[in-house]
């Protein structure tokens, strides 16, 4: 795991600064009163919004005269709809990108010009089944040869009844509703091939549905057992491989109507997506990605495994055998032929929102050298190039949250810069528009495999909440301007505050209170079914 505990960060190798006052990493999370211990506090207190710690440091200027580093994923552009919320699944076909979204239903983009992709159609959802204002689909399974796509709804607070629905997309600008099926089983991922649908239905296992041309789709078979936890299917000939959550990877013989379980391979994490390329199944399984030899589906074997830095949610094979993975925080790429699945690229998906990006899905079009990624607000297009030698910037923590700090006092947090790349990483400077935020040192050089610490100080000149970005100017070709969220004096309960008492009832009737949790570390995860 990349992220170390704060207390261990200072033991990282390769700690270096480019010179200057040299108080690097003298404190973490410390605070004090007065002007602080470095010139930066005074600079920041002037409130001019400049954040680099001027001190005695002379930062090198960016040198663009040499041979540029390669950029394995070249960001072409970002496009969004009127009120886009959450692209959940996407599949490209040539220059068209089909996606399922949380509130705009089935959407289709024309990405001929990757820098300026445009919506061909949006808000497509089956009448009477989808929410009338916020149609939603979870996953899609195209059969482009037949000009059809099936979309799914797993059932939640917004659209309570699960369903799947078939569209004619021979004219992508006007998808025609064909027929659907409302189910009791919650439907997640789906495969459509020649009028037959195999749907992953969580604990209801595999549901087989046929399009017989009538008024509705027809369920013809199913398979489930106590271990069923089906999320995403992938069909190869007469074998269906299914990523099945905490159960792992399962293989089914689908040569007949009834799916017949061939084998189950337990995997670490929770398996959420699978693709199969040349008899190797690649699985996205939360904290891991895995390669599994499936040449004999009755006896699957792990041949590659890697713990990832993000959370692996979806994957696809790009050019040069680069396994591309949507990891919530970033897109990362791995050498598909390396047993250790060596990381070969990491790409922050740029977002204009204050949030950090949620990269939930991606799709590669190797024939066109294109990669598409879906996030919270938009669709991104990339050109994929050959993986090249380059520096790589990684910063932890991903955001700097200063506690409530009074005027005249300060708080320090440490930002650790790591370089998992192959060339020296240079941070040429740091800047933001936030009042009273300074960085010491403002520039660092980090060798491949090394790390350096930058001390970020918050010395507010008013009680006003501060929320913004710290921008690091780097020589990472992917991220020449690397941003870290910074906040301070935010209203509301925050780190360092006592959590207010609560008494809540669990689904099984058990009562939970803060007092009951005393003496334990507790994780409270607030989320929603939709």
């Amino acid at each position, binding site marked *: 795991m990349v992220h170390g505990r*704060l207390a261990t960060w200072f033991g990282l190798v390769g700690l270096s600064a480019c010179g200057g006052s040299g108080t690097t990493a003298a404190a973490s999370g410390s605070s004090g009163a007065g002007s602080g211990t470095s010139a930066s506090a005074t600079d920041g207190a002037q409130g001019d919004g400049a954040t680099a710690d001027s001190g005695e440091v002379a930062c090198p200027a960016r040198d663009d005269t040499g041979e540029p580093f390669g950029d394995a994923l070249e960001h072409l552009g970002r496009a969004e709809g009127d009120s886009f919320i959450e692209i959940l699944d996407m599949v490209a076909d040539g220059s068209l990108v089909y996606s399922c979204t949380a509130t705009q239903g089935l959407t289709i983009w024309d990405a001929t010009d990757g820098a300026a992709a445009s919506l061909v159609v949006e808000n497509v959802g089956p009448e009477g089944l989808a929410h009338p204002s916020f149609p939603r689909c979870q996953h899609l399974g195209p059969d482009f040869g037949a000009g059809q796509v099936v979309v799914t709804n797993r059932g939640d607070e917004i659209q309570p009844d699960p369903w799947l629905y078939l569209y004619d997309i021979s004219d992508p600008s006007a998808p025609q509703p064909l027929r659907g099926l409302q189910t009791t089983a919650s439907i997640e991922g789906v495969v459509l091939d020649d009028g037959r649908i195999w749907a992953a239905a969580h604990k209801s296992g595999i549901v087989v549905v046929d399009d017989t041309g009538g008024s509705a789709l027809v369920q013809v078979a199913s398979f489930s057992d106590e271990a069923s936890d089906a999320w995403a299917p992938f069909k190869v000939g007469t074998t269906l491989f299914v990523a099945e959550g905490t159960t792992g990877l399962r293989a089914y013989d689908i040569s007949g109507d009834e799916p017949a379980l061939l084998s189950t391979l337990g995997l670490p994490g929770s398996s959420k997506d699978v693709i199969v390329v040349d008899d190797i199944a690649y699985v996205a399984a939360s904290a891991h990605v895995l390669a599994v030899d499936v040449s004999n589906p009755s006896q699957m074997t792990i041949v590659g495994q890697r713990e990832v830095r993000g959370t692996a949610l979806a994957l696809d094979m790009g050019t040069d055998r680069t396994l591309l993975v949507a990891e919530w925080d970033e897109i990362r790429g791995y050498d598909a032929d390396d047993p250790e699945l060596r990381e070969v690229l990491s790409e922050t998906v740029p977002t204009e929102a204050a949030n950090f990006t949620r990269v939930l899905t991606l799709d590669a079009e190797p024939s066109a050298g294109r990669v598409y990624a879906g996030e919270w607000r938009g669709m991104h297009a990339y050109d994929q190039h050959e993986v090249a030698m380059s520096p790589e910037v990684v910063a932890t923590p991903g955001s700097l949250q200063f506690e409530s700090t009074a005027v005249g006092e300060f708080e320090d947090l440490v930002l650790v810069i790591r370089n998992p790349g192959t060339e020296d990483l240079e941070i040429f400077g740091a800047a933001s528009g936030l009042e009273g935020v300074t960085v010491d040192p403002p520039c660092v050089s980090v060798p491949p495999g090394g790390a350096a610490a930058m001390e970020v100080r918050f010395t507010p000149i008013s009680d006003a909440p501060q929320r913004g970005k710290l921008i690091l100017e780097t020589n990472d070709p992917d991220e020449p301007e690397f941003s870290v969220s910074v906040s301070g004096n935010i209203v509301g309960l925050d780190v360092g505050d006592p959590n207010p008492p609560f008494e809540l009832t669990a689904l099984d009737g058990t009562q939970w209170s803060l007092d009951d949790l005393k003496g334990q570390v507790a994780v409270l*995860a607030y989320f929603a079914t939709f």
Partner: protein
Amino acid sequence: MGLSGGGLFGGESFATVSAFRDQTNVTFPLLLRQTVSGQYADPDGSISPYPIDVIIDREGTIRYLRHEFDAAAMRSTIEQLLAE
């Protein structure tokens, strides 16, 4: 381990959350409350109230608060607090 965890839903019905539990096979406790908005600070300026991840230490003090899921940072914080 000394670690507890729960998923909290704001404003959703017992039936919906029960269905979610059955669909997804989650094994940690799922708790119901009226709302999740407005209580915690939002340093990220999020456009959605979800998710909110809170980690509290053995004394009940908030030691981690994010409106965006960051698995690696959460793992790191949990390891640190369990070692304290």
